[in-house]
């Protein structure tokens, strides 16, 4: 084939340009550590990387939500546990008093203790997390329990609402981390039992005291059931946390696989391209030296 002198040089130019553009691409990869820097470099990988990033952002958010949920549940656990202890102490007092003959003085002291127990129970019902009352339903800004007297019996009044505070821990998964005070405390009959017991001790009504001992046992049992319920939800969160932690790691690995280059391969490729470029330059220099003119002297 005839080769025009111009196309000889154009060929050299074109090939060197191609090689240097390929060299630039590999160089970019190695420098950035990424497989692609614009959508058209690898559209499919980019779309899947975007999906992975969104999933990752969901997971991280669920993980944060669960941290908050754990705070709520741990605090609930402590409060219910202590309340259950109060009920236990009150029941012991009731049993002690149901034996009948007690000194007037002892009765007064124990009645006062039961009164204190009621105060403590109310204060536990008003447990706060970062300024929020956790047993108030949605009315987290108002103390849900306050002392009141109904028909001459001291008890607590609930001013929260009947809602539970829920957090999201998955796409269609929610868990209630803040049960309302009505369900946790009022419904067990704790406050009424304490108030009634106090009045019964003051009036030395042994039958009523005996009856309250039985009721307080039931109250304690109910509180323990609620405690177990908190435990179940804590376990659920912990289980979910483990799953999400594994998932998070897996997705980060996959994201790295999609986005990040394999350095060993990229550097090998860079070396190859470099060599090809150098060889092309050397060959071009040789070719352009050739001319018939050199031989016509």
């Amino acid at each position, binding site marked *: 084939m*005839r080769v025009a002198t111009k196309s000889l040089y154009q060929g050299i130019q074109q090939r060197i340009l191609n090689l240097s553009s390929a060299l630039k691409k590999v160089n970019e990869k190695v420098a950035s550590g990424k497989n692609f820097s614009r*959508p058209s470099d690898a559209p499919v990988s980019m779309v899947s990387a975007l999906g992975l*990033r*969104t999933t990752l952002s969901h997971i991280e958010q669920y993980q944060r939500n669960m941290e908050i949920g754990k705070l709520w549940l741990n605090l609930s656990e402590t409060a219910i546990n202590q309340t259950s202890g109060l009920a236990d102490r009150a029941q012991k007092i009731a049993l002690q008093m149901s034996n009948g003959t007690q000194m007037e003085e002892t009765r007064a002291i124990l009645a006062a203790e039961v009164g204190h127990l009621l105060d403590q129970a109310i204060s536990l019902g008003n447990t706060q997390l970062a300024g929020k009352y956790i047993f108030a339903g949605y*009315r987290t800004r108002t103390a849900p329990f306050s002392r009141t007297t109904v028909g001459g019996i001291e008890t607590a009044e609930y001013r929260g609402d009947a809602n539970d505070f*829920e957090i999201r821990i998955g796409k269609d998964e929610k868990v209630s981390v803040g049960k309302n005070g009505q369900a946790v405390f009022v419904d067990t009959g704790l406050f009424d039992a304490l108030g009634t017991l106090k009045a019964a001790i003051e009036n030395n009504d042994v039958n009523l005291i005996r009856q309250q001992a039985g009721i307080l046992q039931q109250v304690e049992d109910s509180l323990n059931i609620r405690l177990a319920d908190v435990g179940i939800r804590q376990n659920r969160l912990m289980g979910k946390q483990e799953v999400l932690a594994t998932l998070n790691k897996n997705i980060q690995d996959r994201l790295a696989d999609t986005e990040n280059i394999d350095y060993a391969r990229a550097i090998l490729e860079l070396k190859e391209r470099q060599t090809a470029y150098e060889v092309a330059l050397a060959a071009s220099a040789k070719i352009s030296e050739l001319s018939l003119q050199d031989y016509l002297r």
Partner: protein
Amino acid sequence: MQGISAVLNIAKSALRVQQVAMEVASNNIANVNTPGYTRQTALLENQASFLPSATKLGMGVQIASVVQAFDQSITRTIHQNTSVLAENEAKASVLSYLENIFNETSGQGLSQALNEFWSAWQELASNPEGIPERTALLGKGDILWKHFNSMSDQLHQVIRSMNTYLGGAIAELNQTTERIAFLNEKITAAESNGTLANDLRDQRNVLLEKLSGLVGTMYYENENGSLTVMTSDGTPLVEGNQSRKLIQDGNRIISGQGGADISQRLAGGKIGAWLDIRDEIAPQYLANLDELAGTLIQQVNAQHLGGYALSGETGLYFFEDFVTLPALPNSGNFTGAAGFIRLSSDIRGKPANIAAGGISGAPGDNENALRILNIQTDDTSQIRKWTYENRGANRVSNLQNANMDDYYRTLAGDMGILTAGVNQSRDFTQTMLFHLEEARSSISGVNLDEEMTELLKIQRAYEAAAKIIAIVDELLQSLLRV
């Protein structure tokens, strides 16, 4: 005439013809790097004797013609591919800008803004009464709608700038067709005596190649040597010594005064590429971005309206509500939504007005925030996806079941695939054109070594002819000495 003086005449013709041949070779060498130059060769022929003679000897040498080494079919293929390459190059260069608008590889794009917006809702759901969380959500909302606005702005700018590009290309096209018409006239005149106007043809070919880069063309040569040129859809550009101008009028391109709009039909070259971007590619992405923004406004507002602010107020908008029909964007037509979207005056600067509560304004009520979060992962929501064809003459929309994250991801992916495709055909056409040009050069291009050899050959012939004259001179002298 015969005898010694005939030999002298033959030698004289040889000297003259070799000089012309040397001129041709020298001219080839001189134009070794001239773009569009076609190698020329002097065709020599024996000068036949016109006298009746028994021997029928020739009377020397003469130049039959100087011809170009020109291959019509390769040249035509080159023009076609020039058109395709210019189209792909122009498209690729605009697309590389467009794909940057949709560039999500750095983790700074709209996708990220959407993620952060939803995360802010999550934070609010975990602490519905928190003013810091509410303020953060307003901040993320601001970032999100501003991102939509700026993408919409950039797409609009691309569309507008295409008309400026087209204006330049059309001016260049008109200038080129005018020059071709002018050369047509000169070529017809120069060739009327039967010789070939090689250099003028070279010039015309260069112009034709330039024209092909501007728009797809068809052409044929008439018997008188003039070229009739049309666009690939048959709109005449040059006939004989007349060129027909294209005129840009707003979005319209018309051929000659009072003609019809041909902007839908012009294909190939830079003009075709820019029309594709202006009327098809950029508007389609803009329409889909509008759908996404409109869906976001509609779905978030629908849920937000039913919720309660901390004050207990309800019926508040999160994003500015759509305008009323027939103005755009409205609840049935989201055109322009990406440029329209912004926070409503109900909540702008009033974080307490974010309706996180589902049943009351109670500080711990997060029900509505949780419901709004369902939008993020709701795969059953339907979003329209537009496809523009035939420069926007056919606009088809299909309902897609996708959440907004997925919808946007597909959009960004489509852009990447489109750009990669155009880049690929650009590189392919480039390689092909390179090989075609090599093929053309191998026929039409000048090879210096070849010309050098040619010169040597001519030099020897010239020397031999001179030698003949010297011998004839000797012969004559020996005659004179007799």
